[in-house]
């Protein structure tokens, strides 16, 4: 696999795009809760001080204020860490942003164990479950610079609340600049015919690495990037599974109530019966450490994904016999 290393993490890409967009789109404002030097929202604040509100370390109050301003008709961006945005601020997001369908766009850094080093209190490993459960919430998870830039534009352009999950550290560039992305869309990160690996965010990159490992055994894995986690691209999933007949869902999240559960439920409801496996945290908390070693320890690294792929392919063969 020869992907170019990313020079910036997706959290920084979003902040740069926000700064750029701020010139032409003079409508939106940005709320921050004292981690502007980590989300890089300070760049916007320095350029547009009158449109930047640093509310201090007060994530719930920040979200309530964001809802209030959005209720007045103004599009509002809220930046922060996933754990605090998806948990401390959850009730405000649910009842006062999603319920009234307000234009609040949440840019949420430190998704999954990409913040491994900081430990469990800083790892958003249930955010997709919380945010994906809220009626009317759109959930986007870019994996690289091109998709993160697009995610900012899609979020601002959408009518209603959007949650965008971002990463702490730079990984790799997957898509050429200018690639088209849409809400409800997907990207074929790699074409294959033996198994579909559905993933989002950093796990697209881990899955591409897994596909490279599988290739050495003659296994052709397809990597379907469901960057639009909610709503997800049902047509692309159906089409891919019709060719591969086996599904692994790889997510940097609890296996419970994330994308894996959503896809399994969709398969059941739609009569798509394929061998199925999930990569993610298996009902456990992670720990502090390096990102790659933490993935390895919790069975989310490329070789674990490859093993899961081999296993579902094995089950497919048995059921076909």
């Amino acid at each position, binding site marked *: 696999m020869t992907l170019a290393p990313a020079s910036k993490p997706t959290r920084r890409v979003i902040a740069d795009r926000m700064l750029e967009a701020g010139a032409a789109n003079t409508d939106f404002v940005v709320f*921050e809760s*004292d*981690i*502007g*030097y*980590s989300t890089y929202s*300070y760049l916007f604040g320095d350029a547009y001080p009158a449109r930047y509100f*640093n*509310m*201090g*370390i*007060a994530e*719930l*109050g920040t979200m309530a204020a964001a809802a209030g301003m959005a209720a007045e008709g103004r599009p509002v961006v809220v930046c922060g860490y996933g*754990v*605090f945005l998806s948990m*401390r601020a959850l009730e405000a997001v649910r009842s006062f942003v999603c319920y009234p369908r307000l234009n609040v766009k949440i840019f949420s850094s430190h998704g999954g164990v990409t913040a491994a*080093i*900081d*430990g*469990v*209190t*800083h790892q958003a490993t249930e955010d997709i479950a919380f945010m994906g459960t809220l009626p009317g919430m759109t959930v986007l998870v870019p994996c690289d610079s091109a998709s993160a830039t697009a995610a900012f534009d899609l979020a601002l352009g959408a009518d209603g609340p959007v949650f965008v999950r971002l990463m702490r550290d730079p990984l790799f560039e997957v898509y050429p600049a200018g690639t088209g992305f849409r809400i409800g869309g997907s990207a074929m990160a790699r074409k294959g015919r033996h198994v579909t690996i559905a993933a989002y965010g950093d796990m697209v990159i881990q899955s591409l690495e897994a596909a490279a490992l599988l290739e050495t055994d003659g296994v052709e894995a397809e990597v379907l990037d469901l960057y639009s986690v909610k709503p997800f691209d049902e047509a692309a999933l159906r089409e891919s599974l019709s060719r591969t007949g086996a599904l692994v869902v790889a997510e940097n999240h609890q296996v419970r109530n994330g994308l894996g559960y959503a896809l399994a439920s969709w398969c059941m409801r739609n009569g798509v019966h394929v061998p199925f496996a999930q990569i993610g945290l298996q009902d456990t908390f992670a*720990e*502090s*450490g*390096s990102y790659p*070693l*933490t993935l390895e*320890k919790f069975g989310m690294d490329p070789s674990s994904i490859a093993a899961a792929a081999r296993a579902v392919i094995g089950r497919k063969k048995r059921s076909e016999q």
Partner: protein
Amino acid sequence: MTGNNPEMPVGRIASLEAHARDIRREIVSMVHAAQSGHCGGSLSSADIVAALYFDILNIDPARPRMAGRDRFVLSKGHACPVLYAALALRGYLPVEELSTLRRNSSRLQGHPVAPYLPGIDATTGSLGMGFGQAVGMALEAKMTGAGHTVYTLLGDGELDEGLVWEAAASAAKFKLDNLVAIIDRNNLQNDGYADDIMPMEPIDRKFEAFNWRVIKIEGHDMSAIVTALESARTRSGKPTCIIAHTVKGKGVSFMEDRREWHGKAPSDEEKAKACAEIAGGRS
């Protein structure tokens, strides 16, 4: 209450100051080894934590779960290097283990996790929530008639969290005079000066209005720290808040009062320079 207390034996203070220097050295060394972690807020509270762990707290490293021991909750959990250093130097864990900070399988997680390491009373790292846990511990002590004291250390930025004021109100309602909240008033938080990011002054009058007893000290004056902590221990029917005026990064000239040293790891060169300054007694 500030300045030197003439009653205080000089040896006691000098020895605590030496412990604070050791703690500072270990903070810088472990964050350097991890190449990740929070120096500034650990260094600003090193003198307070030295006084607690080497003098004030009734604890026994050989019996970390001893009944009736005093409790310490690091509500500003990101400053755990100061806690890990104090615990190691006090004998709860080998000092060499400090270099495993933030590594996979280490007991020294990025933020403190109670069950991982003996001597840690509460899991923290999400600001505002350690204070509430300390209230619960003090309530338990009141309910069972246990005589120990619960200490908690908060950041001044942490005071932005509404949760802090919920905890403050409940502590006063239940007359938790066995609870001592120490505020590390270094006037810096993540994004800049605390007074700019979210003005919270007058902090003393806020706590007084919440029906707390308030003591203000210079947070690097060891004799003032010890005097305040001893006086806070006396039961008065009210919880006590000690506002300790400190300097973020204290003891390392190039880290002092610098926002960027909130959560940055020193290079090899910076570590050597920092350790030399600390050994030189600048703290």
